[in-house]
């Protein structure tokens, strides 16, 4: 039975009663919007661009805004497209998206339009990079070549699905600020790109543990579907180790300074801790959000001291 707010006497409800109802509803709506439309991912993407900007000592450009808009557009669109398949794994999100699907799609489209327009300011390379997430999403989620028949949605192809998503985002996050800066590509760019690619790969596979039942039903092959949860945990430990080894090698080769190495290693360790929780806790949704926020400690370490 649902508990009526006025009859609930615990501390939090007493606290909530102090909040005007309209404000409370607005706050709930905002929270749901941030969480369920994946707007928080847009904020994280913008933060990642700021991290890259700082790591590569690039000037501040609209790249962060473009990346944020692109992320919001692609994830918002993906939420609308996957309504049916997400119903079982994320019912609350699905209900929210179902209710606002028209608005969400329109906002996503407008966000992409704005992102592409802003990217044009960064020159042809930035313009091209802004198109990457859209094209990748089309390859990933859509049967856009039905006449060929043999071409599956890349979402269904084992490992390639996560490689595509991680690759597309790493490309945008790392190279967009460079495209806007219009300077030469710094030597560390390759290392930063590989690091972001590997950590994005881990972040993509973590939510797949939660979605494995639904994915199996619709024929999407992910690490948890093919290897099981335990196997996924070990595989992602391996990828985390690879990311750590890459950073150490880059440091040894002089491509990364010690503080940068430390910041990025914090992110790797953070991810490894979350990976360790796979299969050991039922709160897979919490693990997913925690993984998606894995850049925030780095952001705090890199950007906050600058303010």
């Amino acid at each position, binding site marked *: 039975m649902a508990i009526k707010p006025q009859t609930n006497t615990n501390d939090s409800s007493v606290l909530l009663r102090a909040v005007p109802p309209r404000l409370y509803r607005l706050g709930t709506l905002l929270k749901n919007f941030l969480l369920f439309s994946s707007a928080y991912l847009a904020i994280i993407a913008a933060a990642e661009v700021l991290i890259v900007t700082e790591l590569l000592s690039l000037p501040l450009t609209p790249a962060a805004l473009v990346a944020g808009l692109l992320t919001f557009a692609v994830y918002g*669109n993906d939420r609308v497209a996957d309504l049916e398949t997400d119903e079982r794994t994320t019912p609350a999100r699905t209900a929210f998206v179902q209710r606002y699907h028209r608005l969400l*799609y*329109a906002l*996503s*489209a*407008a966000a*992409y*339009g*704005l992102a*592409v*327009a*802003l990217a*044009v*300011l960064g*020159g*042809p390379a930035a*313009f091209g990079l802004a198109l990457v997430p859209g094209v990748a999403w089309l390859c990933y989620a859509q049967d856009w070549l039905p006449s060929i028949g043999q071409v599956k949605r890349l979402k269904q192809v084992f490992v390639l699905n996560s490689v595509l998503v991680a690759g597309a985002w790493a490309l945008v996050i790392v190279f967009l600020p460079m495209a806007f800066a219009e300077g030469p590509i710094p030597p560390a760019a390759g290392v930063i790109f590989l690091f972001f690619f590997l950590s994005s790969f881990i972040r993509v596979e973590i939510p797949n543990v939660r979605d494995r039942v639904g994915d199996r039903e619709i024929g999407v092959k992910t690490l948890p579907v093919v290897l099981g949860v335990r196997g996924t945990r070990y595989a992602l430990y391996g990828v985390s180790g690879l990311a750590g080894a890459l950073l150490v090698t880059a440091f040894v080769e002089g491509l990364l300074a010690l503080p940068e190495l430390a910041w990025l290693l914090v992110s790797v360790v953070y991810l490894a801790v979350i990976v360790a929780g796979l299969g050991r806790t039922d709160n897979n949704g919490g693990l997913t959000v925690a993984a998606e926020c894995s850049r925030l400690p780095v952001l705090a370490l890199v950007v906050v001291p600058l303010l």
Partner: protein
Amino acid sequence: MKLALLASIAVGVTTGLLAWRERPEPGAVPLVFLMAGQCWWSATLIFRIEATTLGMKVLFSNSTWLGVALIPAAWLLFALEYGGYNEYTTRRHVLLIMIVPAITAFLGFTDQFHHLIYLDATLIHQDGILTLSRTPGPWFWVIAVYTYLLGFLGLVPLFKLITSQVRSFRGQSLTLLVGLIAPWATNLAHLSGYLPTAGIDPTPVAFTLSGVAYLSALTQFKLFGASPTPIRHARRSLYEQMHQGALVLDTHGTIVDMNDRAATVLGTTTERALGESLETVSPELTAIGDTTQHKRVFTPKGTRRTYDVSESPVTDVHDRTIGRIITLHDISDLFRMQQRLEVLHRVFRHNIRTNIQVILGYAGYLATHNSQSKAETLKRNALEIEATGEKVREIIDVFEEGRKERENLRLHAVLRECVDAMERRYPEVTVEYDSGPENLLVDGLFDIVCSNVIENAAQHNTSSEPWVRVTVEASEETVEVRVADNGPGIEPHELALVEDGTETPLKHGSGFGLALVVWGADIAGGSVAFESDAAGTCVTLEIPVAGRVNP
């Protein structure tokens, strides 16, 4: 200008994505490509303005042609799909339309080798801006003419919808027109040198307006939510698929259109009949058209179908008659039923009246005289009335059965039962029965038909050594049941009653049994043929095989 170009990209991408979601609605995909072409043009123009070297400016100027060439093709395909002209958007047509754009894009990227699009490229300072000055080459004018031509062609479906009775279609088509005319007018003004834009073609700036127009069409007027696409096809389908045959004649009586049903009725094909006069194709129908009868019924030669012919004039906006439509409504079943009822009515009335007159006459006689023979006659007439009544009831039963779903029966079982019943009722008649295949299923209505044929053969056989022979011969789809006898034969007028469509005025009607056989067989999808002379009668029933059972 840069801000306007950026706005055009933002609106264009947004509109394109909203249109992409509406697939496979007609027009959605071409609209996406239209938006892509516009955005590409705007983006490359920004890059060209931003570029500082001649080489880079030329590169972006040349690559612009990819979008420029895509726009007219996408526009035309969008307009055709949206307007319901899908017959012009097949893969072949798309390839044909795309030939010039593809050549243009190729020539654009390779212009420095042939200079077909631009004859030269120089950097000049104009109004304080470093701009690219180029002289158009021959292909520039080819693609310009092609763009305007396709633009005009795309207007045709839209203009038709501006006067649509549906409000949202009017709104859609008007906003789409704004979407086309804004960049068009800008381009014309630029080509005419009226715009002070330092030599830069500002057409993409107008894409902001056209993007907003398309966006309005999508959101405000539900561009793909309420689509006029089916209108043309629905009218054609309605015409093609209607149960009635329909012909459109011009004022000279030439067939200018007809549906397949009409062609079938007239025993021709649309390819053969279109362009011919109705008199050539069907003189009988022309003759009916000329009559002033209230009821116009047409029965094509060599068929048993009957059509009610109606005619209505076709008028133009000035109320002038420019042709006529002839419709042929199949009334075969109703017509036949009406004929049968008329015959029943006549026969029934005639027989009863005759019998009653005899009874009345003889009853009066018997009141004063005691006559055994008159009493016998009176009794026979009373029995005839009873028999007539019984037969009519059977016929009504057959009509009722004809309207129901009937079960199939084994023909062998039906015939066996009829033959056995005949042997019991008429032991003096010698019966030969060759059953043929025993696994055939036929319509249940043939039960009554066969029993009447066989009973008639025995009942009216006045031969001294009467015999009846029943044989069965089956083919793949039909089975023939022949019932032959050595009786006196059937009176010609009775055969006329049932063979000439039953409309012949009845002279004497003892032929209820025959009528029942013919009508019953007809209703069940079979047919009957009679061969009769003084030496006997052979009735051949052709029955469709409804199925086969395992022995």
